[in-house]
């Protein structure tokens, strides 16, 4: 199983390490042709505005939309979740628009309000260490979508078909359970 991590900016090395530990072959993706032989893709945390600009510039918007339309799973964390969403609160436009969720950016405040907390994630863990950094949250999940975790009544992990979004940073911990959950999704869609 070969998983790519979009490597334009952000926490790329951390996701590569976690995916390898979870049992996948993980490669950084800097050019669109590197998407070709992948079974799944991770869009990491970083600055969504910066990553989005580089995606536009190098043709990643069309290439990743096509990747998603081929039913290949995509996992977005923090900035990655914002990039996947088809609605961003207070903005008319969106980035990839692949996943039917509405997100709010910097929803928990500025850096000094950033936090970590242990929380249950349905089907993944009873006590998952979640690191929130200037994090967004998911306001709404579209039809057919599942809410996997909430924090203070705000949706922070959701799945919709072959798309998975987390508002926090699983790549900053040593806990590979959410990455393993994503790899199971990839297996499911490969067969």
């Amino acid at each position: 199983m070969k998983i790519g991590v979009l490597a334009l900016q952000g926490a790329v090395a951390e996701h590569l390490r976690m995916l390898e530990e979870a049992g996948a072959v993980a490669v950084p993706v800097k050019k669109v042709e590197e998407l070709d032989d992948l079974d799944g893709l991770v869009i990491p945390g970083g600055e969504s505005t910066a990553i989005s600009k580089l995606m536009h510039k190098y043709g990643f918007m069309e290439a990743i939309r096509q990747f998603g339309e081929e039913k290949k799973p995509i996992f977005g964390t923090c900035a990655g979740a914002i990039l996947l969403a088809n609605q961003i609160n207070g903005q008319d436009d969106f980035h990839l628009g692949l996943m039917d969720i509405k997100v709010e950016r910097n929803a928990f405040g500025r850096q000094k309000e950033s936090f970590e907390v242990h929380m249950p994630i349905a089907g993944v863990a009873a006590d998952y260490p979640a690191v929130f950094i200037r994090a967004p949250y998911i306001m709404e999940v579209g039809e057919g979508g599942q809410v996997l975790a909430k924090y203070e009544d705000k949706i922070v992990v959701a799945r919709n078909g072959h798309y998975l979004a987390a508002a926090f940073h699983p790549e900053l911990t040593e806990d590979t359970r959410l990455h393993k959950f994503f790899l199971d999704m990839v297996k499911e869609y490969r067969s």
Partner: protein
Amino acid sequence: MVQVGTSRVKKGMAEMQKGGVIMDVVNAEQAKIAEAAGAVAVMALERVPSDIRAAGGVARMADLGIVEDVLKAVSIPVMAKARIGHFVEARVLESLGVDYLDESEVLTPADDLYHINKKEFTVPFVCGARDLGEALRRIGEGASMIRTKGEPGTGNIVEAVRHMRTMMSQIRKVQAMSYDELMAEAKNLGAPYELLEEVHKTGKLPVVNFAAGGVATPADAALMMQLGSDGVFVGSGIFKSENPEKFARAIVEATTHYTDYELIARVSKGLGTAMPGLEISKIREADRMQERGW
């Protein structure tokens, strides 16, 4: 239990900046230009380093009105500088909601013996360093991110290169050492033993390490990335160039694709003149900002 300001949250913030460019800005308009060009954060200042150098006198924390304007103008993180040792300036900036503080040698030091005890703060800090010992002392005090000092406001990359090469070479040396040698090396470098032990085990700094102090062109940024930087700070290099918007975009692209020479060539064409440069030997020793910090 919910915890704010943990080491993981503070270091993690810097991890999210990796592969990106942090740009110095002196007003909201410049901050918007930087954000539109793809900056991962902006550093809100009253004057860019080359103007601080030119103005002389005592350089302090920026006018808080400017910092607030910048905080309101952009959705990306906003950093600001406090004087070395000036923990009240740091607390004031933290209270405004600044996302990251730079305890910076670009400003006139407020304490000639001690740096800020950065562990006490909820907001994370970045600090400058010229070698591994200095980097580990700052991390020991609680810095969550390191950058080379270089020589700020010069547009001359030579000092940043020297600092990054020194750090990387010392890291390789420490990694290859036997355990028996570590304590003596900690004494040598003036570094906390436990942090040196971590470098020995992992072969890298325990926090993200950016380049700063002299980056003026896309090729400068790519050079620093190849020498092992996790990202780049550009101070005077953008808004002292002939065409800031183009320069900003080109430096962002060169930082992402730092080994793609055709791309760097393409983005470097037709940029106009870079900021004027300063020869390091022409700067009086007393005016060298990199000597500030202990």
